[in-house]
């Protein structure tokens, strides 16, 4: 789904793009897009949004639970800013946004590693 096709005031789901590299460095989140080969740094609000973007939690819930409480911002203003931020990150290929939940890749690095199938 394109960024533009998710209209304002609809439920918005956000997910981290699977083609992104990311790491916390000090207080900032570094994000690099394989698509653009461009490095970004995310401010604390964008970092919270990025970390919470699991594809299953609606944006308004992320804003209510994580952003309003952290930054003491009125909910309407926080939601407006978060939507704009999500669209901006989506334009750079960093986030995926949709009106529907976004399935995430099944592989989790924290799952126990399977026994080796191949003897080298």
């Amino acid at each position: 789904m394109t960024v533009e096709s998710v209209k304002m005031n609809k439920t918005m789901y956000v997910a981290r793009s699977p083609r992104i590299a990311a790491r916390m460095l000090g207080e900032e989140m570094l994000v690099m897009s394989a698509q653009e080969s461009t490095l970004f740094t995310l401010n604390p609000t964008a970092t919270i949004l990025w970390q919470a973007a699991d594809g299953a939690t609606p944006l308004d819930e992320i804003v209510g639970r994580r952003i309003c409480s952290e930054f003491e911002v009125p909910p309407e203003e926080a939601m407006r800013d978060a939507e704009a931020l999500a669209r901006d990150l989506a334009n750079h290929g960093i986030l995926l946004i949709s009106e529907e939940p976004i399935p995430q890749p099944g592989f989790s690095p924290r799952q126990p590693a399977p026994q080796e199938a191949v003897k080298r």
Partner: protein
Amino acid sequence: MSVLMQEMSERALRLGVPFSVQLDLTYRCNEQCVHCYLDHDDHGEMTTVEIKRLLEEMAEAGVFILTLSGGEIFMRKDFFEILECARAFTFCVKLKTNAVLIREAQAARLRELGVQSIQISIYSHRPEVHDAITKVQGSLRRSIDAIRFLKSQGIKVIMANVLMSENMQDHHGVRRLAEELGADYTLDPTITPMMDGDRSVLKLNAGESALRELFRDEAYVGNAEEFCAPPPSPDENSMASLPCSAGHTACYVSPYGEFYPCVQFPLSCGNVRQQRFLDIWRDSAQLKEVRAIRLRDLSSCSQCAHGSTCSRCPGLAFMEGNMRGPSTLDCEKSYARTGIPSNNLLAKKNAPSVPRLVQIQVVPAIMGNRLSRLGSAVGAA
């Protein structure tokens, strides 16, 4: 390097974070390049489980750029399983490969997994030259096919052109080939000793006249007059500068878990099979020693005209016998560039032409340092 990436590297240095790691997955290879510095036998590579645990430890330590290299990475049957795990930990993954095992399916999978870039070794645009270096007939054709597959997936490809006497005349041809394929191009005119210290491959290095010509080629160096100008005298800032990122923001892990400051700096700092990655990074005595070195601590180089501009590699200096000493390969490059011999080259020229009593080849690190210090003391006396 972008300005932001430079800033992040500097921040990583301030925070003591291992920003960039090269992990060699195997030393096995399907090519047998004449200049290769590796022993291709498998002496007990890390298992899939061990590598996944290491990736988790590296992510926790803050590693951002992860270069997977070898040997030939696609020789590991679990390569994509390792890559999936690395990407799930959101590393910025770069690959180094000869690409002969990359076909359409592999290229598509690499794109899906969001690999940042793939560096592919190409020695010549002429099959007879490239294939003679790799000792595999048809290898150039397969590598070029792979580059086309990767480019068709929109993946960034860098063609790495290592230059030696065998292919010194072909770099313009390789560069044109890179342009035609839509790949980036990088050139390296240095053949390094084997990791076990054997220096016999150095005979393949391009000679001084070839280097001199290369360093005046504005296609590579920009303004040749500026590039080859006599170096400014080292000032206080350069005396306090770090030799390179090895051990400061970057390090290397071998297929056997050995932890070195850099792939070209085989000073063992620990083994990730026995210690946690972050514990080695923080506590290794060897790494602390490497980190303490500044230009002013280098006995010969701090007094040398090239001190502030030389590309001196501390790893090559270490392999020559002393991590605080000069790297003759870099002295030769500085000389080819400027026509001004380094202190080290002058000392070698003035040395009596008697057979060397000490052949510093496979001498262990500590012994190498002792010999070198002994040599300095004798010289001063």
